[in-house]
């Protein structure tokens, strides 16, 4: 009887210790840190009749364990009927040497307390409306970034929403100078 009690006590203690170990290990906490967006540029390119938005977004792991960012997709939030004629191309890449020029997101490992800088580029055109009219109707366009993180405790789909202030669109510096001369 005493052996059984001792055995159960040992098994219980071991189970509790393992559960505690598992719990304290934690998990990844990888996020696109929208609050730390840098170098936001919104530019109106009259030659191509499009708006180009560019910014750098840190991809940060604030968790206790590493995680793998396996897929990333960008998509605009619906902004009304004007969207019917809008052509929006968005691309997000990790800023690194020998970065791929296309939109392919190469899976990456992000250690805890580490970060990568990513660059988001969004190009917006409209088939029937000129850019100033488009800006008046859509002063702000929200872009949603969906991303899949494979961690040591499962797969998570997360999203980040980034507002792009189209109303702040600037002309390229060269064109501005030309206007001043005129």
């Amino acid at each position, binding site marked *: 009887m005493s052996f059984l009690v001792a055995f159960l006590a040992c098994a219980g203690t071991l189970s509790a210790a393992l559960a505690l170990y598992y719990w304290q290990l934690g998990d990844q906490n990888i996020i696109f840190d929208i609050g730390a967006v840098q170098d936001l540029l919104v530019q109106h390119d009259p030659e191509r009749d499009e708006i180009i938005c560019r910014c750098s977004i840190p991809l940060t792991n604030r968790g206790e*364990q590493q995680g793998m960012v396996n897929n990333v997709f960008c998509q605009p939030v619906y902004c009304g009927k004007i969207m019917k004629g809008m052509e929006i191309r968005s691309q997000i890449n990790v800023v690194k040497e020998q970065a791929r020029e296309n939109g392919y997101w*190469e899976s990456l490992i992000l250690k805890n307390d580490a970060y990568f800088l990513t660059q988001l580029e969004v190009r917006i055109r409209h088939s029937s409306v000129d850019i100033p009219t488009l800006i008046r109707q859509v002063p702000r366009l929200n872009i949603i970034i969906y991303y899949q993180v*494979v961690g*040591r*405790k*499962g*797969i998570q789909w997360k999203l980040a929403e980034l507002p792009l202030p189209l109303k702040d669109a600037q002309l390229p510096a060269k064109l501005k100078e030309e206007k001043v001369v005129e």
Partner: protein
Amino acid sequence: MSVQVIPVQTKLVTPDDDLLEVISEYCGPLLQKGDILVAAETMVAISQGRLIRPENVKPGRCALFISQFIHQDGSLSSPFALQAVMNEEGTLRVIAAFIVSVFSRVFLRRKGDFYRLAGKQAALVDDITGTVPPFDKYIVMGPKEPEKVVAAIKERFGIEAAIIDANDLGRSQILAATEGVDHRLLQRVFKKNPAGNADQQTPLVIVRRRA
């Protein structure tokens, strides 16, 4: 005696490709009698379709638990890769390997028993991010029946053949080789990993002896 090592660049090999046809297309004109043709294990595995999307793997409690004890730099620290190995090698085998390795690690201070006991796939599996795109999104298992693959290469091309798992860390493992292959020579040659592990895309290497 010195050896000449010729890494052969190929197209991106996919599960739609026949490995022997790929070898014929890219190495055929280069091969000479007495050569050893060495194929990277990942390429062989990919040509066999040994790819699994992590989304299609449901890790069980054992995989979730055991993976936490594996160093996070290893592929099996991911419960998805570990579950994929359990599906091939057997859950009980992996659990037994884990228990034995815990004891041998604690009491004998010996490392690596888990990989030795859990089956070949435990050492060969590559987790996502471990392979060149587009296979970076897949768990890539080790090749199936590598002995048959090297035998088929020898039969078709009349040269010795081997399948090797090499990496940039100076470690290489010969998975299978035909009888005439000098294992020590290959270990020496592949210590420097002439094929590379990234975008070099040279999964075939011809090793040629020079008198």
